[in-house]
């Protein structure tokens, strides 16, 4: 079918992702039981749906453009900020301390669903006396990426039962709601049609295991909530705000659809 400028691709490719020549990623695995076969037997990382050129940028940290922002976050970690004269390093030995954390977030604390941005801004406001960062700002997402990097290669493993259950249910309901004048749900695109082309875009399963992702088009790190907002806006809908309780719940539900995939933070997208 030579007439299509887009490559006639169907489904994920069969490439495997080994970072820096040594760290092997699980980019496909058995779908979690709670999905009950809704996406078929297998879940895939978004990396498997990208072109070879985009994929290549994630193979080596020297080529990964997100690492510049991560380096800035390392500098910030050791920089005193706010009225209390403290840095992250005043209380934490280093970001390595947070290995495994990103794989288990969001989680419930004192009845509230908490995501990494909440923890970071909480520390800035409460213990450092610094201004909170904007949700999708590069300082915030750089820190989210630096902490996420400590879990790279670990399987996503969010808890969905117990006190997490009501939040998970809320997120699930959102996932299947057909928003906007185009009446499209997350599932319409990422469950029913992953592997298909929608105009020039090769639809993935909409997994979040690589977030924040560096988007070449925007030349910066993109937060999960920013991606959710964009996807809902594209249905001609009134979207939800970044940092809203709705998006926290959706973040938990979407993360749980990826339970078992490796954390790839920071991933690279076109």
């Amino acid at each position, binding site marked *: 079918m030579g*007439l*299509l*400028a887009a490559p006639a691709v169907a489904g994920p490719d069969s490439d495997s992702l080994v970072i820096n020549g040594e760290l092997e990623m699980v980019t496909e695995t058995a779908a979690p039981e709670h999905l009950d076969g809704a996406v078929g037997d297998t879940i895939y990382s978004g990396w498997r749906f990208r072109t070879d050129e985009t994929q290549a940028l994630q193979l080596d940290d020297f080529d990964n453009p997100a690492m510049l922002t991560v380096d800035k976050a390392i500098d910030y970690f050791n920089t005193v900020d706010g009225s209390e004269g403290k840095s992250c390093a005043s209380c934490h030995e280093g970001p390595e301390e947070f290995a495994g954390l990103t794989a288990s977030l969001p989680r419930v604390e004192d009845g509230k669903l908490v995501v990494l941005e909440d923890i970071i801004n909480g520390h800035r406001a409460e213990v450092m006396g610094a201004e909170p960062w904007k949700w999708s700002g590069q300082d915030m997402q750089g820190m989210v990426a630096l902490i996420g990097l400590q879990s790279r290669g670990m399987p996503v493993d969010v808890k969905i039962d117990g006190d997490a259950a009501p939040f998970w249910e809320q997120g699930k309901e959102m996932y299947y709601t*057909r928003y*906007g*004048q185009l009446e*499209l749900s997350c599932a319409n695109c990422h469950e029913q049609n992953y592997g298909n082309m*929608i105009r*020039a875009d090769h639809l993935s399963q909409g997994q979040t295991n690589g977030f924040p992702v560096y988007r070449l088009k925007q030349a910066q790190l993109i937060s999960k909530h920013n991606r959710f907002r964009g996807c809902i806006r594209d249905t001609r809908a*009134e979207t939800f705000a970044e940092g809203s309780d709705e998006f926290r719940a959706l973040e938990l539900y979407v993360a749980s659809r990826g339970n078992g995939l490796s954390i790839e933070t920071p991933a690279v997208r076109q």
Partner: protein
Amino acid sequence: MKKMLVTAGLITAFALPLHAEMVAPTQVAFTDGAVEGSLTGTAGDPAAGRVIMNKGAGNCIACHMVSDLEEFPFHGDVGPSLDGVGDRWTEAELRGIVSNAKEMFPDTVMPSFYRTTDFVRPGNGFTGKAAEGELDPLLTAQQVEDVVSYLLTLKE
């Protein structure tokens, strides 16, 4: 001067009945997913319909492959190829599918192009903000007719 006024009055008089024939989005009558009469009383323009397939709120090739639209890049495959739809469906059926595909294919992912009610959090275009006032349909009645007349040209 007097003559000109009379002429203007005549034009209005002629325009009114035409206008009255326009079927509003909330008044479209579906029979088994099909819509019998024209939505406007004015024949569709296939050339104009062809442009809508690629552009604006139509953007049908986001989801459909159409060989005749080869010059436009990036045809999606969320929906079936539309090659030969002019043979597979009648004019009334195509009008129904384009106006509100959910009447023909319940639960389809295809948007309803001539419908204005019962949406969840409808937005103001692609701004992400809430819609203000009444929604416009994605396509006007005449654009639906134009697209239908174009689809009828897609024969094997």
